């Protein structure tokens, strides 16, 4: 209709010109709309990306899509641990039944048994390691091997142990000066001191070759326990069917070593856990300094924490020296001198001091020298691939159970390698988990029966467990007391037997049936099509009810516990902020438009008098504000897109904490601009703009032509 079009055109013209006629007002309203659109675009882009990151992290590391656990459980399942430690779950007695039922549910691809818990791991000490090396040489010599190289190693390793004995004697000598020689434990202390004195004599080392095993036992049983730095660390693990685990969680990968062979016992230690807890402190600190410099842009010159790390590294040189026997120490010094440009005679200690005295200019070079020259000669991790470690945990029955398992490799989750939330997790075979958990497998029952036949052996076993449970100092005493009574030869034999049975156990291959018929604490369900999660969740519930399994079903987000709620929390925060912002915006825009309308009452009245219909006046006003909304909303959305792009170009939002690392599913969050975010922001600002113009429009509508007649006097 031509008349309408002409009228519409002139009204649009008036609307636009009114906007231009009051640039300050338009600018203020526009700025509000722009900021609103910007917040919505950036906020929702970041949030969506976080949501995606969380999904990747949780689903790919432990969560799967759904989780089931015993419905009678006291606590809720929290895959990544909660405020009060591990979840209190009742066991699923027979996982195979659960698997049989749930695998039949449509869209369920895989059911993975799990048992998450924490256990203690002895990390050993430098003394033990040095003795272990010496023992290796002794074994070869006793077996009849010989040669200049073996002799040289043997001599070097013996010298290493001897040096450690001396260091230990010096340390304890200092301690004796401040202790009370007449105290209650004086007798034990005296005997310890005598043993240490003996091990430090020239005679002891001269006679080493006469009774190699005897001397070793003496060192291992009487001297090594005095080096009190034997430490425990806590290992968080998921006991699982390892093959199924790797199939279900594509992010999981072995970074060093290999997977646990199918059906065998073993552990894959979390890489990040190894980095934080098992790595040589000096190496760890170098890594941290490098990370802070590279990723967080810190500088040694002006960051207190980095300066402290450098200081601590210089003080930590002794730990490195202790690890080196004379041959290696000499070789290292020779390599370090040219690398550091040091004078020919500079001793190793001074060279290391030079190496660790880092400044911002020298750090990168020194870091390289450490890893290229020093690290290959050191044991970088207290527990390393190929070691067999003892894991202990309080079992269901109240006693401590312990298992020996081989470390097959280090485990990490792609993308979230450095997150403490997933990266702390180790993977343990299901059978070992069950041993630790304390549910008797048939095999364990047989072993206990066998042990019961030799009562003495069993008691020692128990004593040791207690000793290690209640602290190293006590343990040393009790151990020593027992040792005094027991023939050392028998002890050696017993130890050899233990080693043999452990080797049997480690080599045993369990069938899939054995793995599945037994206890699990929870099970992860992997779906064919994750989009059908809700429907499948219902189906799974029904199948569980039909089969009377008594299991609880939760989705991945709920199973993730506190971590899972993070996104929900962020969403609430953003939503609240946006709502508050737009509520304020609504009031401001409304006020400004009311003022503008009141100023124009006469003009509107005139237009009405000369024949403008009401609806045109209202339309004109709405067009005005909608134009502001659209133009500045688009500008805000574009600016938001620019911010999102800028964040990506600048390297993303850095994950400065563990939680963020996990939530971002990587070292930085790269927000992705969603069409929904842009469309949504425009819709929101337009809606708010129009809502806030409704009242002014109502005022405009009520303006009568009479107002035009009102005279100014």
């Amino acid at each position, binding site marked *: 209709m031509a008349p309408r079009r002409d009228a519409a055109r002139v009204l649009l013209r008036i609307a636009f010109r009114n906007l231009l006629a009051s640039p300050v007002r338009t600018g203020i309203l526009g700025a509000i709309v722009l900021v609103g659109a910007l917040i919505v675009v950036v906020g929702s882009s970041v949030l969506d990306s976080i949501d995606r990151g969380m999904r990747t992290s949780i689903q790919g590391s432990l969560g799967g899509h759904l989780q089931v656990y015993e419905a009678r459980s006291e606590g809720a399942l929290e895959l990544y641990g909660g405020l009060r430690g591990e979840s209190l779950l009742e066991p699923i007695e027979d996982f195979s039944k659960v698997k049989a039922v749930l695998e039949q549910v449509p869209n369920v691809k895989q059911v993975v048994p799990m048992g998450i818990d924490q256990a203690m791991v002895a990390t050993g000490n430098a003394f033990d390691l040095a003795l272990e090396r010496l023992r290796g040489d002794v074994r070869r010599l006793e077996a009849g091997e010989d040669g200049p190289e073996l002799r040289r190693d043997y001599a070097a390793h013996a010298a290493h142990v001897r040096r450690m004995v001396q260091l230990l004697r010096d340390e304890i000598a200092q301690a004796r000066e401040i202790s009370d020689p007449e105290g209650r434990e004086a007798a034990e202390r005296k005997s310890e001191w005598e043993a240490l004195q003996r091990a430090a004599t020239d005679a002891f080392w001269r006679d080493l070759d006469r009774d190699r095993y005897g001397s070793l036992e003496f060192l291992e049983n009487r001297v090594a326990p005095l080096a009190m730095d034997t430490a425990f660390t806590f290992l968080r693990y998921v006991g699982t069917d390892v093959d199924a685990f790797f199939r279900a969680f594509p992010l999981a990968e072995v970074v060093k070593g290999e997977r646990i062979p199918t059906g065998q016992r073993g552990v894959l230690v979390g890489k990040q856990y190894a980095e934080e807890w098992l790595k040589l402190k000096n190496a760890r600190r170098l890594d941290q300094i490098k990370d802070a410099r590279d990723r967080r842009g810190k500088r040694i010159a002006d960051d207190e924490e980095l300066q402290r790390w450098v200081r601590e590294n210089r003080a930590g040189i002794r730990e490195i020296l202790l690890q080196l026997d004379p041959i290696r120490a000499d070789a290292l010094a020779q390599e370090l001198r040219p690398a550091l440009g040091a004078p020919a005679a500079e001793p190793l200690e001074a060279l290391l001091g030079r190496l660790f005295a880092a400044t911002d200019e020298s750090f990168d070079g020194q870091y390289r020298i450490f890893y290229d020259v020093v690290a290959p000669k050191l044991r970088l991790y207290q527990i390393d691939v190929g070691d067999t470690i003892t894991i202990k945990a309080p079992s269901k029955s109240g006693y401590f159970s312990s298992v020996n398992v081989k470390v097959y490799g280090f485990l990490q989750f792609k993308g979230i390698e450095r997150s403490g939330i997933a990266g702390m997790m180790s993977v343990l075979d299901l059978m070992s988990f069950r041993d630790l958990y304390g549910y008797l497998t048939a095999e364990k029952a047989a072993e206990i029966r066998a042990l019961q036949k030799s009562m003495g052996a069993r008691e020692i076993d128990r004593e040791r467990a207690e000793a290690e449970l209640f602290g190293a100092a006590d343990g040393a005493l009790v151990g020593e007391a027992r040792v005094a009574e027991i023939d050392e030869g028998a002890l050696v034999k017993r130890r050899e037997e233990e080693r043999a049975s452990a080797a049997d156990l480690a080599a045993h291959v369990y069938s899939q049936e054995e793995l599945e018929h037994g206890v699990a604490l929870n099970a992860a369900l992997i779906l064919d099509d994750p989009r059908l999660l809700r429907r499948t969740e219902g189906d799974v519930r029904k199948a569980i009810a039909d089969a009377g399994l008594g299991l609880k079903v939760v989705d991945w987000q709920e199973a993730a516990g506190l971590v899972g709620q993070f996104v929900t929390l962020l969403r609430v925060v953003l939503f609240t902020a946006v709502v508050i912002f737009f509520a304020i915006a609504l009031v401001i825009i409304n006020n400004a438009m009311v003022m503008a309308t009141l100023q124009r009452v006469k003009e509107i009245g005139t*237009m009405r008098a000369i024949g403008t219909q009401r609806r045109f006046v209202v339309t004109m006003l709405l067009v005005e504000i909608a134009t502001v909304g659209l133009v500045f909303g688009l500008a805000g959305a574009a600016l938001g897109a620019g911010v999102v792009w800028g964040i990506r170009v600048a390297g993303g939002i850095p994950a400065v904490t563990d939680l963020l690392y996990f939530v971002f599913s990587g070292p930085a969050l790269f927000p992705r601009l969603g069409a929904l975010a842009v469309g949504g922001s425009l819709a929101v600002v337009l809606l708010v703009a129009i809502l806030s113009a409704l009242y002014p429009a109502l005022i405009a509508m009520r303006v009568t032509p009479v107002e035009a*007649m009102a005279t100014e006097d």
Partner: protein
Amino acid sequence: MSIVSVEHVSKDYMLGKTVVPALRDVSLAVGKGEFLSIAGPSGSGKTTLLNLVGCVDTPTAGRVIVAGQDTARLSERALTELRLRTIGFIFQSFNLVSVLSVFQNVEFPLLLQGGQTRKERAERVLALLDAVGIAEHARHRPSELSGGQRQRVAIARALVTRPALVLADEPTANLDSETGGNIIDLMKEMNRRDGTTFIFSTHDPKVMAHASALVRIEDGRIASREDLDAARLAGGR
């Protein structure tokens, strides 16, 4: 035939709870081509009468018939339509749309009416601007013009749709007497040229003198009606 017929019209306003009668039983017929002045002191009811005739207000009692239509029976929309097609307005304080140029202000009613090409509109608007002597200011904004010039624009706007009736509420009150005289001359010229009926209110005796007929209002009642043209014819020459 009268273009406006006011029959026994009363108009009351509510001032709080008291009823204030603005017009009491007023009857008036205005013929085609008249140049009628409504005179009276402030508050006498001039503006109320003009509002009723201009279809921007409706009577409490009685009938107002404009161009054959009883305004009390028309909807708000139809009244607006009637104003657009039949009546032109000239205001005391000019009331131009500040963001539109002189040309666009005059063109505005034509656009509301629609149905003309851009060329037809431009010809009509320019012809009128020429007639009111303001063609050289076509591109200016109202704020760039003097009071007299603005009122010329308002006259052009009132006439652009070729209305049957033009209402002017104190059109010279905001102008000095010389300019005011010019404006009245212009209105009169338009009245003569096209035969457009003009009704304007004023309390300036010099302005009244130009009218063809003079209606005096006092206290909401018509005090007198004089036919000045007839008097002039009788008294002059």
